[in-house]
């Protein structure tokens, strides 16, 4: 029996269980109600239906999930026990190659065998897969019936089906949220592990404080010394994401937030705010080619015109400017929220003193909203330094340690992309360096986020 058919069958059984349990509960409750006692009936019939349906489906599905994981081992054992397997070579490598080939043919993923030995194992494979497939299906259906029958006998007017179903709903939701957490923990663990392997090849101090980055030379056998100094990358990241981008985003974001909250007529605000926030919805790859194809050449021409040497067609400035534009909505919506959270009475108090609107903004609103604004800026920085697409397309690959915004610099994210594109071997320092870079980026963004959220939260409490 094939997988989809089995699942359809189980779903059908579940539906039957639902209908029949509900009908039974309805009948029993009609009788129970006739006794006139209010507490004679606990749950609505629908809950009994769900209770029995879940007992029918859930154990069978759980069993199939476990079964699917142990069947390959059982199948291989069965095949190895077959007389045809006696002639297999003894070394593990060629043996598993032949077994794999035979399995591919048996399941139809491959048409013919290269190795005659594999051809001989196809039949035993087919037989074993079939056998265990049927066994699994039968067991699942038996479980479905057993579970359903057990639950069905518990359908009584006073049975607390609702409580059970609610509990199961809660458990499902809990598992869903735990999955996200488990994934995060897994990612962090893999980052830590691979970074640890990297740092066993390269001294962490050389990595964090070295100023020469040339992973290619390490890959070509010149040794790991002096090849993984990540300072130029950190500098490039900060130069683009935390300096140039913020020089664009902070003033523009803040000023648009002030305009939108303090000056704009409601009609203007109504269309202007969503339009501004649309910037955040533009795919970063679009910003990327805008930066690479429009801004960068224009900046280079401009730099050449005013006589700056070393102007590159992939410049820190191009990437930073475009990233700054991308970040504007983050800054402006955080600033907007914090300015709007300053009580109106504060503003009235200042205006009633004879302060102008701009004096009120500068001397009362901004200072009061500052923690929120700072939090927003920190979040924007953490977003900017983790941004990849724009810098990959517009910032370049040369690991320069330079203050010249027209020169090409590279960033942590760009280098991660470079290190992991193409064929990789997972035991070289060059590949593992990507994980170390990722770890640094993760730690920095995490810290920025924690600090930002703290600042914002502390400030929120001040006015409640």
């Amino acid at each position, binding site marked *: 029996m094939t997988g989809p058919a089995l699942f359809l069958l189980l779903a059908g059984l579940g539906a039957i269980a639902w209908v029949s349990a509900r009908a039974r509960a309805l009948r029993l409750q009609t009788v129970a109600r006739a006794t006139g006692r209010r507490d004679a009936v606990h749950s609505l019939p629908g809950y009994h239906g769900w209770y029995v349906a879940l007992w029918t489906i859930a154990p069978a599905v759980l069993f199939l999930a476990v079964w699917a994981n142990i069947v390959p081992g059982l199948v291989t054992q069965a095949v190895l026990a077959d007389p045809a397997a006696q002639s297999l070579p003894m070394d593990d490598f060629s043996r598993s190659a032949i077994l794999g080939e035979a399995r591919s043919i048996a399941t139809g993923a491959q048409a013919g065998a290269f190795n005659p030995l594999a051809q001989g194992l196809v039949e035993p494979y087919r037989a074993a897969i079939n056998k265990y497939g049927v066994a699994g299906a039968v067991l699942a259906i038996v479980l479905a019936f057993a579970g359903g029958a057990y639950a069905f006998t518990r359908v009584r007017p006073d049975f607390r089906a609702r409580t059970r179903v609610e509990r199961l709903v809660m458990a499902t939701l809990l598992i869903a949220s735990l999955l996200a957490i488990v994934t995060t923990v897994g990612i962090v663990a893999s980052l830590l592990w691979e970074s640890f392997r990297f740092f066993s090849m390269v001294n962490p101090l050389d990595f964090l404080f070295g100023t020469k980055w040339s992973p290619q030379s390490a890959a070509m056998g010149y040794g790991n010394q002096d090849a993984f100094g990540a300072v130029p990358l950190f500098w490039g990241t900060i130069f683009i994401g935390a300096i140039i981008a913020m020089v664009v985003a902070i003033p523009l974001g803040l000023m648009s937030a002030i305009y939108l909250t303090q000056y704009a007529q409601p009609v203007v605000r109504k269309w202007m705010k969503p339009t501004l926030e649309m910037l955040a919805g533009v795919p970063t790859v679009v910003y990327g080619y805008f930066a690479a194809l429009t801004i960068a050449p224009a900046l280079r021409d401009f730099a050449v015109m005013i006589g700056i040497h070393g102007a590159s067609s992939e410049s820190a400035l191009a990437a930073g400017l475009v990233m700054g534009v991308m970040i504007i909505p983050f800054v402006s919506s955080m600033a907007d929220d914090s300015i709007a959270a300053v009580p109106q009475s504060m503003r009235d108090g200042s205006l009633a*003193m004879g302060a102008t609107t701009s004096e009120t903004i500068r001397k009362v609103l901004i200072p009061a909203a500052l923690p929120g604004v700072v939090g927003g800026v920190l979040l924007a920085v953490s977003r900017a330094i983790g941004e990849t697409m724009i810098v990959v397309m517009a910032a370049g690959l040369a690991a320069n340690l330079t203050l010249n915004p027209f020169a090409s610099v590279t960033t942590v994210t760009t280098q991660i992309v470079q290190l992991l594109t193409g064929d990789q071997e997972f035991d070289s320092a060059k590949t593992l360096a990507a994980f170390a870079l990722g770890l640094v980026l993760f730690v920095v963004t995490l810290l920025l986020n924690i600090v930002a959220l703290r600042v914002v939260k502390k400030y929120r409490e001040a006015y409640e």
Partner: protein
Amino acid sequence: MTEATNPLAIANPKMSARDVKVFYGAKQAIKGVSIDVDMDHVTAFIGPSGCGKSTFLRTLNRMNDTVASARVEGMIMLDGEDIYSPSMDVVQLRARVGMVFQKPNPFPKSIYENIAYGPRIHGLAHAKADLDVVVEKSLRRAGLWEEVKDRLHDSGTALSGGQQQRLCIGRAIAVEPEVILMDEPCSALDPIATAKIEELIHELRGRYAIVIVTHNMQQAARVSQRTAFFHLGDLVEYGVTSDIFTNPTQERTKDYITGRYG
């Protein structure tokens, strides 16, 4: 309003309103109020909630300008000058007509900076020494100096509610206004803090024209010499406080002060 309900003929009013109407969108909140406020007396506006007394108070320093839907008709004069005329600078007006709000609203700055805020924006004091003088004088007048002189650089928001409200009064005084408008200044305070504010109003009387909106009729009787009773956007009766409370001429006034409604 008819002349009969306004027995006060004030020769030289500080502020006077003539047939003032205020609209919020299509809704009319004030229906033609004429009133004179003079320098030597504290004037109280009383009336039930929603009668328009606060709205009217806010027209006196054009705080209603900040409400987008509000529209004011009629004429309001400060020393004979129309405050709604295009030549009137709102910033100047509000420096001359200060305001204290219902809820204490000190800025989230130090006590010193709260007081220095107004003098700074109006350029009344530049040198640190001048500012120190203004701050001390204002805090003394607001009756707060003795309590805060050792912690001028603590946050104004850390003071108690009553102290915060006196800080706000001091802040208003610091710009040397001619009129001080108080919008239910004690409604968020306990009785002791309220008594202190009332005492302060007595001390400030004569130096500034004071207009106070209050819900509390005992308070109006205690602090004011002139009382105006508002009801449903009308100025029903305006007169000497003792007359209003002992011998009102209008039926609606009598009903209100005897507690029939409100």
